[in-house]
């Protein structure tokens, strides 16, 4: 479904990586590894279409990205919290769904927040939550926005033991349901299987 070939990227004059290629099918996931500054985040940004590649191509269902299909079936969570501090977790979920043009009923949104352990905090402004809880609000989007490909950049950072286990479970369930994931991390991830890509 996702095929990447000959991808190259440079920052300024420095070449980060060249000739990166991989393919992901249903139920598979890719673990992107590499030292600090190796270009993991740059690869993620190329992959989702935020920045253009120097060379190479990325295809989703055989079509070059970023296609409309790709945008609809992919979700990217990066370093940023990407949540609005002045809004409540529930409002955040609703608004991102509305911007994405995705229908979201109250029940699904609440269920997602509860699954992420945010019971009782649905109506507090995100501003008063802890860093880990903010991450959890962001991760709740994985459950409210139906996507096939999950692209998660350092998603396990700032999470406590429970949340790491929870996210591992979410990813495993997603894969079991036929989804795909591309993850970056320094540490070993609590998700079984997976291809490895070392930059």
């Amino acid at each position: 479904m996702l095929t990447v070939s000959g991808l190259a990227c440079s920052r300024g004059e420095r070449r980060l990586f060249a000739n990166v290629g991989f393919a992901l099918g249903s139920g598979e996931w890719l673990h992107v590894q590499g030292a600090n500054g190796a270009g993991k985040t740059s690869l993620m940004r190329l992959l989702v279409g935020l920045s253009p590649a120097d060379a190479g191509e990325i295809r989703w269902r055989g079509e070059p990205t970023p296609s409309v299909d790709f945008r609809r079936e992919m979700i990217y969570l990066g370093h940023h919290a990407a949540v609005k501090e002045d809004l409540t977790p529930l409002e955040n979920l609703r608004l991102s769904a509305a911007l994405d043009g995705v229908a979201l009923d109250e029940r699904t949104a609440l269920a997602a927040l509860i699954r992420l352990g945010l019971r009782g905090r649905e109506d507090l402004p995100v501003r008063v939550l802890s860093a880990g809880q903010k991450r959890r609000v962001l991760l709740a989007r994985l459950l409210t926005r139906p996507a096939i490909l999950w692209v998660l950049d350092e998603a396990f950072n700032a999470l406590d033991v429970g949340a790491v286990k929870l996210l591992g479970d979410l990813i495993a369930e997603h894969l079991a349901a036929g989804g795909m994931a591309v993850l970056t991390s320094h540490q070993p991830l609590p998700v079984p299987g997976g291809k490895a890509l070392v930059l």
Partner: protein
Amino acid sequence: MKALLATVRRDILLALRRKSEVLTAVFFFVIVTSLFPLGIGPEPVLLKKIAPGILWVAALLSTLLGLPRLFAADHLDGTLEQMALSPSPLGLLVAGKIVAHWLLCGLPLVLLAPVLGLQFDLDASALGILTLALLLGTPLLSLIGAIGAALTLGVRGGGVLLALLVLPLYIPALIFGAGAVEAHIAGLDVGGHLSLLAAMLALAAFFAPWATTAALRVALE
């Protein structure tokens, strides 16, 4: 279209949670226009003559106040990235943000202008023309300003740079906006001024979201 409305709603909701930001621009407009009579003297004939220019320049500067924040907040917390990757076209979301900016920073000025115009001894029909000209002109300011805001996103000294980029482009709006009221006071027909403002608005509505989107994609790279 739904995505556009959703963006408008979102930005207004966010602004309402932080009322101070909107109120600052409006308060600035009020205080700047009130300062001029204090600096120039209370002579009604002179005040009446300079009123259109002052109200328009003040409106220009107040819309400029809200511009740096137009995309900066979303850029900082990563929501702008999410918008760029959203299944909805980025151009629509950007258009929504521009509409929201006008509703928050432009419309209040249009509504306040007649009241402030009273300070300058403008009569009812002149106030009407002033309001109409601002109604056509302020969306134009938001549209052009959005391009500047996107170009200076995340750039050193962005605020000052934004003013340098955007103010020269505001000149036609200023000329025809203030010109309409002046022409009316001088007893001339204002149809030409207003239709030119409308034409520029149409042109900007067509091109500005496109240019803004392109600039945002460059800023996100």
